[in-house]
């Protein structure tokens, strides 16, 4: 397949980037991707990305964690090896429940947090030893990079991006990959 051309506009300030995104969107250009050194609040809304569903997965993972904690403590403390701790014999889960609440809480948080991070990595197609996707290493330091595909509108795009305060504009041949 023929390599497509993209334009890389580089910014040095997140506020300038935000207003640039709004201008580019107003001109009805499609922004392929933006690389930033830190999360920029409201960028997803400005780019018109669909709202994230990671909160829903976090809730489900939390429920899984809570269930695991209940089943686990029930097996360990009630069924497998009941002990009499502090005059509270372990005959019934519900009667000993207050003692298990910290574990229920911790495992809820543990599952929600870890599985949410893993989900986020998978969804972002990131895994160990993967070749970095960001086209310019400066985006890991203090630069912001906006990537827009070119469809025979190099001139107008370049001038538009210049206006928005880009400090550097590069036209790049992008190789098609699995992305």
């Amino acid at each position, binding site marked *: 397949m023929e390599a497509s051309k993209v334009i890389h506009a580089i910014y040095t300030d997140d506020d300038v980037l935000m207003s640039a995104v709004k201008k580019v969107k107003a001109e009805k250009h499609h922004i392929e991707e933006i690389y930033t050194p830190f999360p920029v609040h*409201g960028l997803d809304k400005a780019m018109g990305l669909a709202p994230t569903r990671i909160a829903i997965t976090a809730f489900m993972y939390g429920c899984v964690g809570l269930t695991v904690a209940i089943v686990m403590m029930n097996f360990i403390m009630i069924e497998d090896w009941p002990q009499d701790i502090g*005059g509270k014999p372990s005959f019934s889960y519900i009667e000993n429940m*207050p*003692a298990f609440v910290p574990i229920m809480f911790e495992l809820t948080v543990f599952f929600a947090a870890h599985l949410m991070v893993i989900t986020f990595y998978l969804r972002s197609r990131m895994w160990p030893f993967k070749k970095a996707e960001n086209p310019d290493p400066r985006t890991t330091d203090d630069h912001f990079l906006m990537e827009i595909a070119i469809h025979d509108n190099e001139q107008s795009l370049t001038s538009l991006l210049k206006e928005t305060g880009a400090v550097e504009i590069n036209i790049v041949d992008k190789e098609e990959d699995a992305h």
Partner: protein
Amino acid sequence: MEYKISNRLKIGAIVLIILGLFGVGYGFVDSHSYTEENITKRLAEEHDAHGDGHAEEAHGASHDEAAPHVEDNHSGEAHSEQAEGHEMSHEEHVLHQIHNRPYSALYVAAFFFFMIALGVLAFYAIQYAAQAGWSPVLFRVMEGITSYVLPGGLIVLAIAFVADKHLFIWMDPDVVAHDALIQGKSGWLNKTGFMIRGLIFLGGWSLYRCFSRKFSIAQDSADDNRNFKKNFRISAAFLVFYIYTESMMSWDWIMSVDPHWFSTLFGWYVFASMFVSGITVIAMVTIYLKSKGLLEFVNDSHIHDLAKFMFGISIFWTYLWFSQFMLIWYSNIPEEVTYFVTRIEDYKLPFFGMVAMNFIFPLLLLMNSDYKRINWFVIMAGIVILCGHYVDIFNMIMPATVGDRWFIGIPEIGSILLFGGIFLFIVFTALGKAPLLAKRNPFMKESEHFHY
């Protein structure tokens, strides 16, 4: 941007106060119709009416033996006052509980509304001390609510003064004479000290409130930030004073109703309750004023942030509630655990109901980010949270004063209406006394553009 308390609200508040006065009056008249002369007869009648249906269900034949049957029931129950060795008959004990009830109802409601104002005052001071950028548009709302700190606090102290041993058993010299534990604490727990401390707490809080309000108003017409800086400094100082005095206030005004019992995190627990109630009321008043077309500079994001606080502090409250409960439940030391035994045996519904209202309900309702921006959703969640925290205070006071003879009836609801009316009247009158925008606050621009 001026607000004036509307006539409808004013009349509404006055109607609430009058209705409340009737309710409170009825409570006192009704409870004092029980006297030493008729208590035995009336209790027997009560049990008769109660025991009748019971006896019929269980064993219809013994129906005409209702009276002795009731007596039997009594000796069967292990009454705590007998166990503790008070020389008091069951009737006398119940009579005291009946007489305590209207005082307790009054006190619970008075404290509840006072604690809302005090919670808001702490929240307000934190905003200043942290130099928060999102909240200055809400400062005038907060200042309006904190105007209730002084009157509300004086009311609570006055009720404590008048109610005396009806609320605080350690104010009864007869009880103290027979109680080594209270004698040991009498250096702290005596009425003079109680009143002096109460006035010091209130004096400090209202002094901060008075100066902070003054600087806040002065900042409106200033051309530099001197008043803001002063406010920052006194807020930081106030927070130090507050966290000590709030804790001591909670021992004095609440924990001492059970003078044998103590909990080391009680101050925090009461603080969490007042903080979440206060933030809830800020959100409610803000939404109300917005619905009147005022506060147009307050946007969704401010409501969202308040709702996040309601959600977060509800969980914080639960954390403290559970921490206090679990440690005492686990160690199972008799003089400590009796506190929860009473509550779980006699107050099952309010005790666990409040956990549902203060934790599970806000947790599930306010978890979704979008719901925190829907005004009526925040109001509904807020009403449940406020009811839940009223019940929380109810659970702190009532078991010590009325025992198992509790009910949320006319005296309790009357007291809520009475102090609710006074609260609304004072708060909304104060809201009308200054422009609703603290316009020269250095963070005002940031706050107006606050966007999440």
